[in-house]
Each structure stands twice: as C-alpha cells, then as structure tokens.
C-alpha cells in the first residue's frame, strides 16, 4: 500500500532564512529517525545533506516539508510554517517512491509541477505544456517529451523529476537522492542544473550519499547521523573527524585518504 501522508499543521513560527530547523526530531514506531537537529540553510547555498544509510537524511527533508509528524522542535521554510509555504518550495522525491509504469509521458509528469499554479479544476493548457517543455529543455530532455516514462532510463527519469521541480519555479529546492543510480551523463546534467539554480539565487538542499563527489558538488554540508554531527561551509565540516563520527568509525583510513580530508 502507498505510504500514509501526514500533514503537519502548526502555528507559523517566525524564523528568517530559506530553511530553519530547531530541535527537530522524527520518531517512527518509537525509534528516533532524526534527533534534535538544529540547522539553518544560508540563502543561496547549495547544501549537501550527507550521512550513512538510516541517518535520517530523507526524514529531515520530509520533516522540513511537514510531510512526516514532528516528535519535537519545528522547521520553517521561506520564513513560514511548512504548511503555509511548501507550495512555494520545489521538491524532488526519491525516484523509487513512484511507479514508473504509470501511463504518462515525460511532459505529463513535468506539467505536474505547474498544477498548483493552474489551480483547482483547471486542465493543463497549451501554455503550461510549453512551460513544461522549457523545463525539459533545461535538463536536456526536450526530445523525450512525449516518451512514456516507463521507457526512460533511471537517469532520464531522475532528470524528469528535476524538470518537474524546475517547473515549480521555487525559491527553495529540496531534493532526495537525485544522484542515486543515474548514469554519468545524467549526473553531469543534474549538477549543472543545480549550479544554474544557485546562480539564479535559489537555495538548494540535496540528500547525497556519495562522499567522493560531495565536496565538489556542494558548498555547504549538513552531516547527519540521526542527530546533526556538523553543519556549515563544506571546507569546515567535511573533515575526517566529522565523517568518522557520522559513519561510526566505519570508514577505512584509505577511504578517508581518497576523500582528501
């Protein structure tokens, strides 16, 4: 069955910045997935959310959006409670969270990023189709607009998901593992799209699992291991100490040497 979506609705909390979390905890079945996380994303930053499997990276993104209930603490997006502002936030869920055998073309999926702007009951019109096509163009997928999504490769599907978020034309983007299982060409397209977003003054948070590429891709990092191990500019926080702490000492010296930290 599909996951239950819990919508969190709290009074707005005054907080500046594109994304602020304070004492944020998420608990599933009595076990903490995220514990007492404080974090403020600097405006215009490209933030890597880094940590081992089960570190609460996805939970952090979903809690920030108010899609999972907060056990404690709070988060604000664009200075408002998530329930108020999430419609203005671009979101890229994990690719594996949907059924790619769904009867839809790449253009159909990207157009979903424009539904909110269209509003209730209004059908997808020519103008939104043109906008969706422009978003596909930005991820190098214009030629695949009418292709059924089930016929796309993993990397192409991920680009479609990014194009849908781009179509939302948001100020803040939250992306859950956009680089998971994509080919090299798609990875290059995705990272240059992220840099374009940053150049346009947008703030982007990206859940990322690959330590090798993280320092190249992101200028800020939030290192999670259920709690926040470290956060700040990449050069300050991406160190042997913080990584060993996050990964519980499981990184071999040779791995750390390869990361040049």
């Amino acid at each position: 069955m599909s996951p239950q979506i819990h919508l969190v609705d709290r009074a707005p909390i005054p907080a500046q910045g594109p994304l602020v979390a304070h004492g944020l905890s998420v608990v599933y079945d009595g076990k903490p997935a995220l514990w007492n996380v404080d974090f403020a994303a600097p405006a215009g930053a490209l933030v890597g959310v880094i940590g081992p499997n089960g570190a609460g990276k996805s939970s952090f993104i979903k809690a920030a959006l108010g899609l999972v209930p907060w056990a404690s603490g709070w988060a604000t997006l664009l200075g408002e409670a998530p329930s108020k502002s999430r419609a203005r936030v671009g979101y890229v869920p994990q690719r594996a969270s949907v059924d790619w055998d769904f009867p839809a073309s790449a253009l159909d999926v990207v157009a979903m990023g424009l539904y909110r702007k269209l509003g209730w009951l209004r059908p997808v019109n020519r103008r939104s189709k043109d906008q969706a096509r422009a978003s596909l163009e930005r991820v190098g997928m214009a030629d695949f607009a009418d292709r059924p999504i089930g016929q796309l490769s993993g990397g192409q599907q991920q680009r479609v998901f990014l194009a849908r978020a781009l179509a939302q034309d948001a100020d803040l983007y939250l992306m859950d593992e956009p680089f998971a299982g994509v080919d090299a060409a798609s990875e290059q397209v995705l990272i240059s799209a992220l840099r374009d977003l940053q150049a346009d003054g947008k703030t982007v948070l990206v859940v990322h699992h690959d330590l090798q590429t993280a320092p190249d891709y992101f200028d800020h990092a939030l290192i999670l291991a259920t709690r926040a191990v470290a956060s700040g500019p990449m050069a300050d926080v991406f160190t042997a100490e913080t990584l060993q702490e996050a990964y519980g000492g499981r990184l071999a010296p040779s791995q750390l040497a390869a990361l040049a930290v």
Partner: protein
Amino acid sequence: MLDALLLSSGYNAAVAMIGATLLGIAAGPVGVFMLLRRRALLADAASHATLPGIVLAFLVNLWLTGEGRSLPVLLVGAGAAAALGVLAVQALQANSRLSGPTAIAVVLSGAFGLGVMGLSYVQTLPVAGQAGLDQFLVGQTAGMRLADAYLIAGVAAVLVIVIALLFKELRLIAFDPEFAAAAGWPVQRLDLLANGLLLATVVVGLTSVGLVLIVAMLIIPAVTARLWTQKLGRMALLAAAFGGVSAYLGAAASAGIHHLPTGATIVLAAAALFAVSLPIAPLSRPKRAPTALEPPV
C-alpha cells in the same frame, strides 16, 4: 438475443440495459484511478460489506413501514455499510500488523459471512419481497424499473463529471501522493473523494452486476484499456468504452436468454474484451525492467 441487442425485447429490458451500460461507462474511469492508486481491491471489501447493510436496511424498513423492499432504502444501507467496510480496512492497515490485501481479505470475508447469515434469517420471515434480496449477490437487471434506471443514470453522470473536472488532481495523487502533499494539495481529502467515487460505483453496481462481481467492472475494463495506451486520458476513455460495451452486451445476453444472471454475463463480456485484447494490443508483452538501476559509474 438479437431483439435484446437492438433494445426491442421489451420496455423493461431496454431500461435495464441502458441503466447497466451507463454504470459500465462510469465504472471504467473510476476503476482506472483505483487501479493506478493500487486500491482496486478495496472495491471488493466495500462491495461484500454491502450485504449486511442491505439486510439491515430491509429489516429496518420492514419494521418502520411494513414493507421491506425499496431500492433507495436498500442502497442507502448498502452505501453506509460499504463506507464502514472501507474504514475498517483502513483502520486495520493503520493500527495492526495486517498488510493491505490481508486487511481487505479479513473485512471482505467477515462482512460477507455476516450478510449471508442475515440473508438466511430474512428468508425465514413470513413477509413478501425478501426473496428478491439475493439478486444483489450476482445482479439482476430484469426487475429494474424506470426510476431505478434514472437513479443509476444520475449517479453515473455525477461520477463521470467529477472525474472529468478533477482529472489532473486525481492523476497527481495516483502518480505521486508525496509530491502532491509537498506541493500543498490536500491529498487526504482527495483520497476521500476518490473513495467516495468507488463507493458510489459499488452501490449503484449492486443492481446490475451484483456485489460479488462489481470489482470486476472496476478492474477489467481498466486493465484492458492499459494494454492499448500509455496516456492516462485515453486509458480513462477506453475503460469507459470497454465498460459500457461489456455492460450492454452482458445485459442484452441476460435479457435474451432468460436464466443467465446479469452480473455474470456482463463480467464475462468484459473478460472477453480483455482476452481479445491480450494477443493483439501493443502493450501486452511484459516490459523489460526500465526502472532497474543502471550500473554505477
């Protein structure tokens, strides 16, 4: 049989066939969204849960008016019981270890057992009209009156209009409910509405297809349509066409050959369309796994 196909085998048969056809047209697109939201089997729990509701509505109506059988009253009882069935499935899924299909199986069989017990009790009562209650099991359009057909037509029209208006919203929550919630759509309320469409189809379908087989009218035309197209809009239209054609052919066969139960003939017609589509439709072959992860680079 030919007379029946041409709606000329009598006024009552023609009314029944039109009612069944409209139901088939509405059930197709409802089934498409249920199938894509992976909720198609929920219809089976809802439909089997109608039986105790029908029996209870009959008894209450008998006690109040001295006359048990009244289609609107029975359908209200059926609808309330079906809604309880859906709530029971969802409560079991949320609060117990049961998975979705298991929760559906428990509610479906439990409610149906209760209904069969009630039905056999009602049949011992020395009152008129109770003999017809078991027609809801496998459907019987033969006794359908013009007022009943109007009721079915009205509900079918509302279902089709709601789906046409909320097409993009229903598509969004069927494909990616998480993204929909993040974009600010009220996913739970839209799901509630989708369940409402399902319940309305089940309740109205009791009259022609019957509660045991109504799930087939939601699923078979939808999966047949999926074999022919990769576009959701076309899939919904095709499902409406397949549903309408099967209901029309099935009801005609039932009217023409007197002892055939309508529900069975309708579902067989739908299954025949599926069987014909399978070898010739473009999307029948199993897909290579396009969502498999590419090798890491």
